[in-house]
């Protein structure tokens, strides 16, 4: 956990991007998940077909998927 906090602190100290330079960053191309509705199903399938979970909203609850 301490390592993660250090990593966040490192990220916080990164150079800032000015508002005027964010045109490209606000486009759909640059979203972490540009297809959130479709990803909901895909992430759920992954969490039930694999031993791993986490890193997205699917944490193994809400479905008794066999």
């Amino acid at each position, binding site marked *: 956990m301490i390592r993660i906090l250090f990593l966040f602190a490192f990220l916080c100290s990164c150079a800032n991007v000015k508002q005027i330079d964010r045109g490209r960053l606000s486009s759909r191309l640059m979203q972490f998940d540009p297809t959130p509705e479709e990803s909901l199903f895909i992430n759920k399938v992954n969490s039930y077909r694999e031993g*791993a979970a*986490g890193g997205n909203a699917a944490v193994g*609850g809400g479905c008794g998927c066999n």
Partner: protein
Amino acid sequence: MLPLEVDVDAIKRKVLLCCLLIFGQNSWAIGKGKAKWVLNLYAQNGDGGHQIFDNSKNEEAYAFEPMLFVAYQINKKTNISGHFVFDTWTAASDTKLDESTGASGEGIKSQSRTSGSLAISRDHKSWRWSSQLGVSSEYDYRSLNFGGNLQKSFAQDNFVLSLSPQIYLDQARDFDIASNQTLNFKGRTIWSMDLSGSQLLTPNDVIQVSYTFIHMNGMLNNISNSVHVSSNPYNNNFSRYDERLPDKRLRHALSSKLVHAFNDENAGHISYRYYEDNWDINAQTAELGHRLSFNDDKSFLMLTYRFYDQSQSQYFKESFQVVETHMTSDSDLANFTSHRFGGHYSHKIEDSQIFGMLLANMEWSAATYFSSRSNGLQSQILQAGLGAEF
């Protein structure tokens, strides 16, 4: 009374009533609301399912899941959103199990599930919070879940820190092979905490790092899983027992994702996740993707490749020689590597008027993903979507 013994139908009615009341208090205006239908089809097939009840190892299964997403902006700072799901599926293993137990009331060839969630989010200066309530119900499973998200942006939104707790108060049934009966519902509680941070690195790069902790407690066996026990693997004298897994699982995942723009029309992403849990599973996931925007931003294409590798759980064996305290033959908990290839395409179409309501920014989408696992399972996902603002 157990906290899980709730009337799911009553909750669904109340959630629907809340939606109608909130929508009813606002006059319609274009851009205030969004709706999207997504139809999901899932098919899998494999011959390595040592957990299958009838010894066939056949992992054939199909699922059909339509989803409806609705979001509505109440005012400048407040949004509500919800999604509603009805899915139905057939599985070769489930059918065998059901014909044996009659657990669903008849020798059914398919099962169904309904679920939904309602969320509200609110912005206040550099803070944003949201809370969410969800329900899910099927014949051997039901769930009531709550979640939240607290987000704070720093340095003029260059860095965003996000904390997301979730809790699932679930109940699941187990199957007792010895008595050939499906048992009563037993509790399963899952809570998770996700801490993530995203940073704008340059005008062309953005990165996200997150850590997720998941705590699972209660009945973690899968109703349709069983194990093969035989003292002599060379003869046909064996018995099948129900899966037996510990009642606690602690899971940790550390992940990161970087998105880089090559120009206004092309971008790529790369992500990595490391995972471990106290059932001795270690997993690594990596994904590469390319995104393309063209036709004056009306068309969007994303191609992805995903690699996944996991070590097997300490409780996994393909077959057992003696009955052990904990044992599973679930192929999802085995040692395997998988490769997945996929593509998503979406296209914006002209605004149109339907039943007097103007629909703007209409977009249809189609996607397909194909996955192949080293332990024999192959699966395919097909998706089709249609969304609009109103």
